């Protein structure tokens, strides 16, 4: 288990100082596939480099098994990295690359040989053991980089956007491969990506970061269903954001107006301060106007976009806001709808998620 306690990182000093991370605290469990997700420049690489030991936190502690390792150099941490461009040693063969860490640790020759063979088998590269790195494809280099970092059996494996250089097909394949490797080796993976789909499909838990701040740490499902704020809600999946006006709160109930429609909701679902309502497109249904329960909206159809199994319906509301619904193509209410027609939508109460703005 590795923990970050209020870790901050400030590059430079004085007027040119850049705060890359501010006050990040999180706990990564044993055997977890943990992902750092966020837009470019939000500090993912910085966080990873502090875990690896290449950067020292400006403030805060990094605790591995109860010991603060923040000042320990990389070669004394049981943590290995798969670099973004792989950083394989070009003058060595595949097998020599994989053996490098074990040799540094002074393992006996026979043990190294056995472990290298084991690693080559793990990434299905036995036949390429004596190849030089320059003569290998991107996907093959990726596997060697993985084998090299896994060979010393680290406690934690760090991966900084390891798949970003691969084409889509290979990427999919490597995503599955990575999950398999993690399951087989039982090593904690800390994975960096800015691709939310990749994060959702691979991770046990995801830390969503933005501009040096840690916004939320949760399982993919919780991030999608219960985003902590507007930033997370907007970053994970697609969503409609509707303005919320709180008219009154008495006891357990709150009366609110969402996009012009009145609604009564349990007060505990309301966050403090300014808020917006998140509605996922696939939770919206076409319904006759004037129904009860949940949120009912009506407006003018702007556009219908056929996307295979479903249709995206863009509706302009009376207050000028636009809302996107994803309607199954089997829905009978969809028949006869055309741009310019009036339509009514319903959002079940449990599909409404109020998030801090």
């Amino acid at each position, binding site marked *: 288990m590795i923990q970050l306690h209020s870790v901050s990182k400030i590059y430079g000093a004085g007027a040119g100082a850049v705060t890359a991370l501010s006050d990040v605290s999180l706990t990564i469990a044993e055997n977890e596939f943990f992902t750092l997700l966020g837009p470019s420049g939000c500090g993912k690489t910085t966080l990873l480099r502090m875990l690896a030991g*290449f950067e020292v936190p400006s403030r805060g502690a990094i605790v591995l098994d109860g010991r603060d390792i923040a000042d320990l*150099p*990389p070669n004394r941490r049981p943590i*290995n990295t798969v670099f973004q*461009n792989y*950083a394989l*040693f070009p003058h060595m063969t595949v097998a020599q690359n994989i053996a490098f*860490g074990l040799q540094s*640790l002074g393992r006996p020759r026979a043990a190294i040989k056995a472990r290298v063979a084991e690693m080559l088998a793990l990434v299905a590269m036995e036949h390429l053991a004596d190849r030089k790195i320059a003569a290998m494809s991107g996907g093959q280099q990726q596997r060697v980089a993985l084998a090299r*970092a896994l060979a010393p059996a680290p406690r934690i494996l760090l991966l900084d956007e390891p798949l970003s250089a691969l084409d889509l097909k290979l990427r999919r394949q490597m995503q599955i491969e990575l999950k398999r490797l993690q399951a087989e080796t039982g090593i904690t993976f800390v994975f960096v990506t800015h691709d939310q789909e990749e994060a959702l499909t691979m991770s046990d838990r995801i830390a969503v970061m933005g501009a040096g701040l840690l916004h939320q740490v949760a399982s993919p499902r919780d991030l999608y269903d219960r985003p902590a704020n507007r930033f997370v809600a907007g970053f994970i999946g697609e969503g409609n954001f509707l303005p919320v006006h709180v008219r009154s709160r008495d006891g357990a109930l709150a009366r609110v107006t969402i996009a012009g429609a009145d609604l009564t909701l349990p007060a505990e679902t309301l966050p403090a301060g300014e808020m917006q309502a998140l509605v996922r497109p696939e939770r919206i249904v076409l319904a006759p106007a004037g129904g009860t329960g949940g949120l009912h909206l009506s407006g003018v159809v702007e556009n219908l976009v056929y996307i295979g199994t479903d249709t995206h319906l863009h509706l302009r509301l009376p207050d000028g806001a636009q809302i996107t619904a994803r309607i199954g193509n089997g829905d009978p209410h969809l028949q006869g709808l055309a741009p310019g027609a009036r339509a009514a939508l319903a959002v079940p109460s449990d599909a409404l998620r109020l998030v801090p703005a």
Partner: protein
Amino acid sequence: MSLADARPADLAAPPARQAEARKSRREARTRWWLATPALLTIAALSLLPLCIVILYSVLERDSYGGILWALSGEAWIEVFFQRDIFEGTLAPAGAHLAILWRSIRLALITTGLTLLIGVPTAYFIGTRPAHTRNLWLFAITVPFWTSLLIRIIAIGELIRRDGLVNAALLQMGLIDEPLQMLFTDFAIGLGMTYVYLPLMVLPVYAAVQRLDPRLMEAAYDLYASRARTFWRVILPLIRPGVIAGSLLVFIPSLGDYVTPRVLGGGSNLMIGNLIELQFGQGRNWPLGAALALTLMILIGLALIPCARLLRGKAAPHG
């Protein structure tokens, strides 16, 4: 491949391919023209003198300087042997061999010292941020602003019996009486190391600059110590630069003439001085020519292992 060889294949090829082949041939010819001035210069100023030197080395000496037009192997014998004037028997030429050995030894020591000092320096400069890097490089080239001779004489001044270095050592109480440093092999080695150091630093620096810093991070991440990272990752990758630097230092220091002349005094000759002597006071041009060729052969021999080292690096995948 000559034009005659190429024709049938060209006729069989489709017109586009023919045109392309013609074009590439024309380009190849143009490029040869570009190289012509250089080739002519090399032929006139390098090959021609070399031929003359080879010729002189197998002619008879004229005791007043110059040569006599008669073939003789005497000069080559004299390189390694001494002929007894009275009996005509041969004995190894002790003086020549000693000078040859001193030359090789000092050139090797100089190369070793410039490696020891130059590689870390080049690494240091190559890993500075871009803007300070140029400043350091500039500092390396500053000595070139002053004449080589003056710099060597200045070193001589420093290490004289009553020079600054001895004075400082005496002052600090490290020695009781001045050390004899000038006119020793030490002085020659010191001078050549100083003079040739930039020739080591610059090519090694060029190689260091091309290093991917992430490779060092990767090694460090994989539990390597600093020493292991240097020997197993950095050194193999900058090897071409190190070999180039070693050659650039070894070759001129083996044939150096000025440094031993100024810092070695009259008694500590190197092969360059010996050659000069034959064309001057010694009045033995054929021997001078043969010694010069011996030096060339020595350098050629030194190049063989270097070429093999470089090829070993490039071989697997071009």
